[in-house]
């Protein structure tokens, strides 16, 4: 309300620069307004209207302040890569970039070759400062990405399938041969999560402190890592599964199955929230856009599909990729790792039409097992069969971090504070739902009434009428007689009536049953009383 008025007020002619500025601010404003305000005109209650008006004004002002803050006070600007002349961005090689960027950034281009312990998987902390990496043969390492120091390295002497950081870099979970284990940053084993069994994928919901795991047989488990309580244990029942991904927007876990379905789960219901058939063949990779509305999936039929999760529809199909791994960056770039080639796709038109942006091939024969954008940096890290490699993807990361959300320059004291605060703000598992903006709103009051007799009657008649209109097939001679046709229609009509009659019978039966029960309790005539079995004295 208040905003609209002010927008109207600023309609007077301004010098062009200021006009441009205000237009720019307006577009930024939309982001912070979080949707449209309440329609106050529809309200009759004057008091409520006044209160809401004040509140809307407050929201508008704070959004405006945030937009101005973004315009003027942000310390850094995002990265970009622009081709000039006949150049194409996807033809630009990493060594070309090395020459152009500063030394600090060029340090982010490297290959770590660890031949024997191969294929590597990896995970970042939310701030992008630390990386946990695990080789299939049991090599686990925590690396400080800022100083490029190895914090801890160990050999668990077991098959390792996945590694994931818990709420900060001091704890991580590793999916090992038989069970997942939780270690601290010193490499000390804290827990062996035997209940999970041999899991293939691990994910951590950092707002809820839930560790989600899935094993090969599709058993999905949620464990609260603060209390150790098992929150959910569901059999997906949709076949073998190797991919699991969390939608960061709402905390819903998506699991890709071998039959081409993707199912989405929350820890409080045993049935999936969504089951969608995405591919004709096993799902090999899944990724979610940070805004939560887009999902990318890849199947063995060599197609990447981009889905709109608000409508559950395919937005775009990109053929020719058999990606083993997908990842969205903070700015919405999509990385796909296929064989020894990593392709980065970007949505430059703003119409959710992904086209190629950059590409990078590593040495032939190396198989990329995991691609992951480093948060708050323009870096893509690939875990492959011979170690891991890091490349620069300009424009992939969010340039400005928030100290209170994820701080790449966090001190240990800040980390401790943060841990306490995040524990205080720990969300209950019930807050995981498809539309998280529903929280805090009230469900419109709707009284569910039993249908009246007339309504049931009307429904029945409608059902009968609909059957009457069905055109019967023409049958062969002899079966197409009028009497037969009439009989057939009658059967159809009876069939339509049947559920209603059954329901009616059931209700009447109930009433009759009640009556009978009552009858038993009523007193018998005196002559019959002596036949009644006497109750044993208690």
């Amino acid at each position, binding site marked *: 309300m208040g905003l609209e008025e002010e927008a109207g007020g600023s309609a007077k002619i301004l010098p062009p620069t200021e006009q441009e500025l205000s237009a720019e601010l307006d577009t930024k404003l939309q*982001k*912070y307004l*979080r949707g449209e305000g309440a329609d106050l005109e529809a309200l009759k209650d004057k008091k409520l209207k006044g209160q809401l008006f004040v509140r809307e004004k407050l929201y508008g002002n704070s959004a405006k302040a*945030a937009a101005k*803050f*973004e315009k003027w006070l*942000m*310390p*850094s*600007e*995002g*990265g*970009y*890569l*622009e*081709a*000039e002349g006949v*150049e194409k961005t996807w033809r*630009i090689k990493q060594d*070309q*970039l090395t020459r*152009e*960027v*500063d030394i*600090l*950034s060029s340090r982010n281009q490297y290959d770590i070759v660890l031949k024997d312990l191969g294929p590597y998987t990896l995970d970042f902390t939310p701030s992008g400062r630390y990386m946990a990496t695990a080789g299939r043969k049991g090599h686990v390492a925590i690396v400080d990405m*800022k100083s490029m120091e190895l914090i801890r390295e160990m050999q668990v002497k077991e098959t390792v399938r996945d590694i994931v950081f818990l709420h900060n870099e001091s704890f991580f979970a590793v999916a090992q041969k038989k069970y997942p284990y939780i270690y601290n940053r010193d490499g000390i084993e804290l827990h062996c999560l035997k209940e999970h069994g041999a899991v293939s994928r691990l994910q951590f919901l950092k*707002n809820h402190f839930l560790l989600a795991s899935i094993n090969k047989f599709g058993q999905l488990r949620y464990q609260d890592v603060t209390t150790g309580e098992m929150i959910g244990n569901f059999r997906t029942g949709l076949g073998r599964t190797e991919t699991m991904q969390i939608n*960061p*927007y*709402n*905390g819903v876990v998506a699991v890709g199955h071998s039959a081409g379905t993707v199912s989405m789960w929350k820890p409080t219901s045993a049935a999936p929230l969504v089951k969608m058939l995405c591919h004709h063949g096993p799902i090999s990779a899944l990724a979610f856009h*940070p*805004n*939560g509305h887009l999902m990318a999936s890849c199947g063995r039929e060599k197609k990447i599909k981009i889905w709109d999760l608000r409508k559950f529809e395919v937005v775009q199909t990109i053929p020719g990729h058999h990606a083993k791994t997908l990842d969205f960056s*903070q700015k919405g770039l999509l990385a796909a790792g296929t064989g020894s080639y990593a392709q980065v796709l970007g949505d430059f038109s703003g119409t959710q039409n992904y086209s190629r942006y950059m590409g990078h091939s590593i040495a032939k024969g190396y198989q990329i097992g995991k691609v992951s954008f480093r948060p708050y940096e*323009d870096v893509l890290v690939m875990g492959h069969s011979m170690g891991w490699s890091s490349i*620069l993807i*300009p424009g992939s990361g*969010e340039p*400005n*971090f*928030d*100290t*209170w*959300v*994820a701080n*790449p*320059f966090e001190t240990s004291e800040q980390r401790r504070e943060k841990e306490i605060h995040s524990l*205080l*703000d*720990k*969300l*209950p598992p019930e*807050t995981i739902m498809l539309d*998280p*903006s529903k*929280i*805090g709103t*009230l469900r419109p009051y709707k009284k569910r009434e039993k249908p009246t007799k007339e309504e049931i009657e009307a429904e029945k008649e409608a059902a009968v009428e609909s059957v009457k209109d069905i055109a019967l097939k023409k049958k062969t001679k002899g079966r197409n007689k009028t009497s037969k046709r009439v009989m057939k229609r009658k059967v159809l009509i009876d069939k339509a009536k049947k559920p209603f009659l059954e329901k009616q019978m059931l209700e009447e039966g109930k009433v009759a049953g009640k009556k009978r029960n009552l009858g038993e309790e009523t007193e018998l005539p005196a002559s019959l009383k002596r036949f009644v079995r006497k109750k044993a004295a208690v």
Partner: protein
Amino acid sequence: MKVKVISRSTDEFTRERSQDLQRVFRNFDPKLRPQEKAVEYVRALNAAKLEKIFARPFIGAMDGHIDAISCMAKNPNFLKGIFSGSMDGDIRLWDIASRARGSLSGTKGMTLITLCEIHLMMDAYFTFLYPKLHRTCGLSRKTVCQFPGHQGAVRGLTASTDGSTLISCGTDCTVRIWSVPVAATLESDHASNKPIEANAVYVGKNAYWAVDHQWGGDLFATTGARVEIWNHNRSQPVNTFEWGTDTVISVRFNPGEPNLLATSASDRSIALYDLRMSTPARKLIMQTRTNSIAWNPMEPLNFTTANEDCSCYSYDARKLDEAKCVHKDHVSAVQEIYNLVYPYFSMDIDYSPTGREFVTGSYDRTVRIFPYNGGHSREIYHTKRMQRVFCVKFSSDASYIISGSDDTNLRLWKAKASEQMGVLLPREQKKHEYQEAVKNRYKHLPEVKRIVRHRHLPRPIYKAKELRRMVIDAEKKKEERRKAHSTPGSIVTESVRKRRIIREVE
């Protein structure tokens, strides 16, 4: 090819010296905070719970009177001074900021937190002084001085706006004028136990029931058999009003218009007087008696009355035919029996200086705080030892409440039960504001609402409340049935705001 890559040097984003504050960068992008509504909701829930945990409103009791406390007066010029008068004729000036260690009856149940708060409450300049005060105050540790003289119960106390004069009246038919020891003597060693003598004693014909001083002027009004207006310098009332024959039991001057005053009488009337006219201005007769009146200091045309039917009624002085708001919550199941003993005190009321809320004390042994426009109380205070509350006052900074009760104690409460007292750091302040805001935002959700609304009630009050509810429901049901079985339109339900009003007399 044009290229730019995010590159952060550590120097730019960390502090230069270890003595510096850590640098903070903000990015308000909603994308960085997934599920922000859920997080906010959880924070609101936690804030509500923390509020409950920190809700310790009782600060301390002030012990010293030997009979029930019948009236109190704030010192408008001195924040921590309060006068109290008791049924045995004793008047005392208390220093609510000073505090004895250990020995008082009220301190037994106190926690360390409240002790610390008290220390904070007394400002630094005062902290080093208060041990001296202990040694010198012989009577009671918090009494600064006494004003002896009244023979019977002190019924009314009031201080002049400059705080230099105290006026008391009582059932011994006297009005006494005292000069208050100034603030300086309060803190000096001379705060002796030497009793103070009255400057003037005026003897009237009838017992006096209440007194109130004009705002800013030098007039004061006493009530009893009639309303009398006095001047500081005259030994006789300058003006007398009479309307009806019944005793006038309370009086309050309007804070905005110094010549306007409101009284309530035992003939169940509320009357408005204008001193510029020789006759009373308006009168309103209700079904039950009004015990006390308080003007809203911020909207001085509105006043709230504490009625004997356990409710408070807010009126607009210009429009007396309908109450602006009815504030219900007090229960006083045994009121009638007590009324035989103390016929005129069952509820007292005082407005916060902010005008946003007022406090009431009642015979149900509780103190309640109501919003000025809300039908139900936001807070209820009670302790095991507190008996029927005769008088309540909001402190002049709106952060404390003082109650005087039958058990001879004055009690000091926080106006916001969970408020953190003392000087707050800006960060603390911000945190409190944030918590208040999220709580306010999610207050309608069932879980938050349940926690915020919950108050532990003593069993008798809980039972009485239930009983009252039942009675009201039964009456309502009866009326509905009566309405349903009579000619449409023959029975008209009157609104609660009008129901208790009998008529208005000009």
